[in-house]
């Protein structure tokens, strides 16, 4: 197979990148691979020299850890001056410290934090343990929805469904 870049030499290097599920594959010759390495086209993920040093691999990550929002500091600020209702933080202070001001900041600055969170964890949502508080909350939401359906069933005189819903609600309210 010929190198995908120069289309002259035989491809000897295979590179696969996966950025948030966006997968690319490259077949390159040694020269083009070396050139890419020099240009840093693959970012820190494919910093061939550094990646073989365990501590530098870590440093790359820790650099990210110190201020994951740092890269956004220079962006034109949309809605500048907006502050979190709970802790009073604005987006620039979050970007500077790399830390949210309080739990509510994640809701308050949701759209502006989303790209960074995606960058760190990929395009994904939480799975695993849930806090009891929200389990209760989601239960309550579900009960409210069922009650609505029950009203509807009674209105349309669908008593079989209504009885079923009533039992379900009863069980959940226990």
């Amino acid at each position, binding site marked *: 197979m010929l190198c995908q870049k120069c289309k002259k030499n035989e491809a000897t290097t295979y590179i696969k990148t996966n950025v948030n599920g966006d997968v690319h594959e490259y077949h390159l010759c040694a020269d083009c691979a070396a050139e890419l390495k020099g240009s840093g086209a693959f970012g820190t993920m494919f910093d061939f020299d550094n990646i073989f040093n365990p501590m530098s691999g870590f440093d790359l990550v820790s650099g990210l850890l110190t201020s994951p929002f740092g890269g956004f500091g220079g962006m034109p600020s949309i809605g500048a001056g907006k502050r979190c209702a709970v802790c009073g933080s604005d987006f620039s202070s979050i970007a500077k410290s790399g830390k949210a001001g309080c739990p509510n900041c*994640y809701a308050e600055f949701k759209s502006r934090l989303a790209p960074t969170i995606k960058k760190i964890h990929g395009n994904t949502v*939480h799975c*695993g343990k849930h806090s009891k508080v929200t389990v209760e909350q989601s239960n309550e939401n579900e009960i409210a929805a069922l009650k609505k359906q029950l009203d509807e069933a009674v209105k349309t005189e669908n008593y079989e469904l209504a009885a079923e819903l009533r039992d379900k609600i009863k069980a959940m309210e226990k």
Partner: protein
Amino acid sequence: MFGKNNEKKWYQTEGSNSDTVISTRLRFARNLNGYPFPHIMSGEQKKEVNEKVRDALIGGNSSLRDSFKYIDADELTPVQLLSMVERHLISPEFARNPRGGALLLMNDESVSIMLNEEDHLRIQVMGSGLELDNLYDTADKIDTLLDETLQFAFDEELGYLTACPTNLGTGMRASVMLHLPAIEADGTLRTLAAGLVKIGATIRGSYGEGSKSSGSMYQVSNQVTLGISEKDTISNLNEITNQIIALEKKSRARLLENDEYQDKIWRAIGIMKNARTMDSAEFADLYSMLRMGVAEGIVSGVTTDKLSDIYACVQPAGLMEKFGDNMTPQQRDKKRADILRKELANV
């Protein structure tokens, strides 16, 4: 302050895979709704959070009332703080900035809950072998108990909300401390580290973030916390760790066929049994050789279990806590050599 407690500490018991696994740790980051994160909290707010968590864990008729003690970080001396870092009870970051923080410490020191470090709570559980599943069960129980009375900050999409977005989701970091002298020596570790990054794990020095490896001790941990469940994270890490252990064992067998390498182990023992003064850097290197010799059955007269105990005893702050806060480094080096000569007499 902790020496009075005669209960056996977790690190004084031998765990599974003790030839390569030094210890295992697992922590949950949790925060309370309605409070800023610790880096912008007032002293008053920190106090409120400390008290809320303390009461939730050991207040009233809690079954854990007698199992934990509450320690105000402001009341700890710098030496006590450092000694706790050496025992991995608190993070170096917490020791640097203890103001307003607190600690809920289980009597056998296997559970330590840091209050107002980077997050409101860092529930940390430690064990001596490769026992991530057991540690998870313990941490999960404590977390569930606290969740009954505390209002944890949680979002359906982002999971547990944490000060730093790198911990969002499960808020869980699981790590295994490994002794990897052979794959460090033959270069396998370097290639391995590259692979780990790609599958969401990292390998780094023994005291976590930003620390260097000393004495071939490395910490392998998960990096991603959002979108992967606790159970899956643990099973991945178990698999990775077992693969690393297998590589280390293979490399050890190869290295030990080499007389020169065996000679290095015996020389290390010679120095440790005879030196009159030894700094902690030299100790870390020699200890690594000795530990490998014992783990591979080349050296007898001491167990890896006992070695872990000695290791904890001769760390700088550990020595100062026991023999006096005002010890100079020279005095510590002398004391370290004294202890080693005594403890390794039968090796």
